[in-house]
């Protein structure tokens, strides 16, 4: 974990490290479930990230489900109208970018947008409130912004990556992915003596394209993670400076509202773009 954060007095360093530490649970070598002794353990689960992300996902589902259940054509409530604005925004983005027909992609975009937005929004809760409250009831660590956990953003981008593979497969047939990877960007020739060069070209293409393919989910998740982690870190640093933090905190929070929304939107938009690229037939 980020033990190198903060070179100030020892207490400041401890404060920052404490704030960046997830609440973890894992099985140790003896087979017992232990809390917060999981450095380097691949089987560990960040309980706080999971809790908040699932909590916010359920919040999203509940809010929109309530609207969907009672949605009336005649006289929408203000809340319904607000939710419909979001739905229409997502729907317009999907229709602008994705030209195929898919029943999955629009709900996926909506879920991604609202869920990521809510998870990012946790950043605006003052950094000490929830950790102190949880410390008071005996929970040592509590990291409340799930998107500052690289596991969370990777988890989502891996789902998107799998969807990219599925969409490529569905749109272009079983071997299309391999063909896509090996026949682009340099088109190998299979005629005449050039056929000798073809395997090398294809191998070269494969390396390039695999890197490009894998870069998609990695960049998708690291962009979100990096932005939110940096924002969170600056909130923690601002929180260190005592009473004078208030104007600074306010200024950064106002700026962060922009980042929160923008990152959620970018994540949604890129998801749509990647899937539309995958399902495009040349």
């Amino acid at each position, binding site marked *: 974990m980020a033990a190198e954060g903060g070179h100030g007095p020892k207490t400041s360093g401890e404060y920052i490290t404490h704030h960046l530490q997830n609440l973890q649970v894992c099985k140790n070598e003896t087979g017992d479930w232990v809390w917060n002794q999981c450095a380097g353990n691949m089987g560990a689960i960040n309980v706080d990230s999971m809790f908040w992300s699932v909590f916010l996902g359920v919040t999203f589902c509940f809010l929109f489900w309530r609207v*969907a259940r009672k949605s009336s054509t005649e006289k929408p409530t203000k809340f319904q109208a607000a939710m419909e604005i979001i*739905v229409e925004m997502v729907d317009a983005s999907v229709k602008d970018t994705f030209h195929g027909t898919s029943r999955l992609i*629009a709900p996926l975009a909506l*879920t*991604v947008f609202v869920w990521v937005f809510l998870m990012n929004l946790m950043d605006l809760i003052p950094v000490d409130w929830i950790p102190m409250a949880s410390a008071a009831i005996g929970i040592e660590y509590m990291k409340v912004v799930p998107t500052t956990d690289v596991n969370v953003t990777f988890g989502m981008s*891996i*789902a998107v990556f799998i969807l990219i593979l599925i969409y490529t497969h569905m749109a272009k047939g079983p071997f299309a992915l391999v063909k896509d990877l090996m026949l682009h960007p340099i088109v190998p020739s299979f005629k005449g003596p050039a056929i000798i060069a073809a395997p090398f070209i294809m191998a070269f293409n494969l390396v390039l394209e695999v890197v490009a393919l894998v870069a998609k989910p990695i960049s998708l998740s690291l962009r979100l993670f990096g932005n939110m982690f940096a924002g969170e870190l600056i909130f923690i640093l601002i929180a260190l400076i005592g009473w004078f933090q208030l104007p600074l905190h306010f200024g950064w929070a106002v700026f962060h509202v922009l980042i929160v929304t923008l990152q959620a939107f970018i994540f949604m938009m890129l998801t749509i773009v990647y899937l539309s690229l995958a399902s495009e037939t040349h």
Partner: protein
Amino acid sequence: MDINATLFGQTIAMVVFVWFCMKYIWPPILSALEERQQQIEEGLAAADKSQEALVAAEAQADEIISEARQQATGILDQAHSRANEIVAEGKDAGVKERERQLTAAMAEIEQETNKAREELRGQVSAIAIASAEKILKREIDGTTHEDILGKLAQEI
């Protein structure tokens, strides 16, 4: 910042939430939206149609009004000419009546004059005879000279 099992937990959570959204959230909201869009579209079309109808009705009303105005003008003209006619007729009748009365009066006057003249003649002749009698009482007998006296009276 280690990669650990949280990653798979998050992937599973995402799959569940996306499935839920696809199944229970997106279709009803979108169908409600589309239905409302259609209703608004229909409403606007209806409004356009009624607007057109209103314009047509206004044109029709204008036409009717101008027709009525024309009719009124015609009636007014007719009435004017009729009034003129009546006045002219009255004038004519008056002129005729005056002439008639005038002639009647003239005739009466003449009649009266004649009557007066006869009377006067009678009286004058009587006076003449009386005076002649008085003069001739001594000389002439009235009867013998009656023819002369009659001629005299005629000449007056």
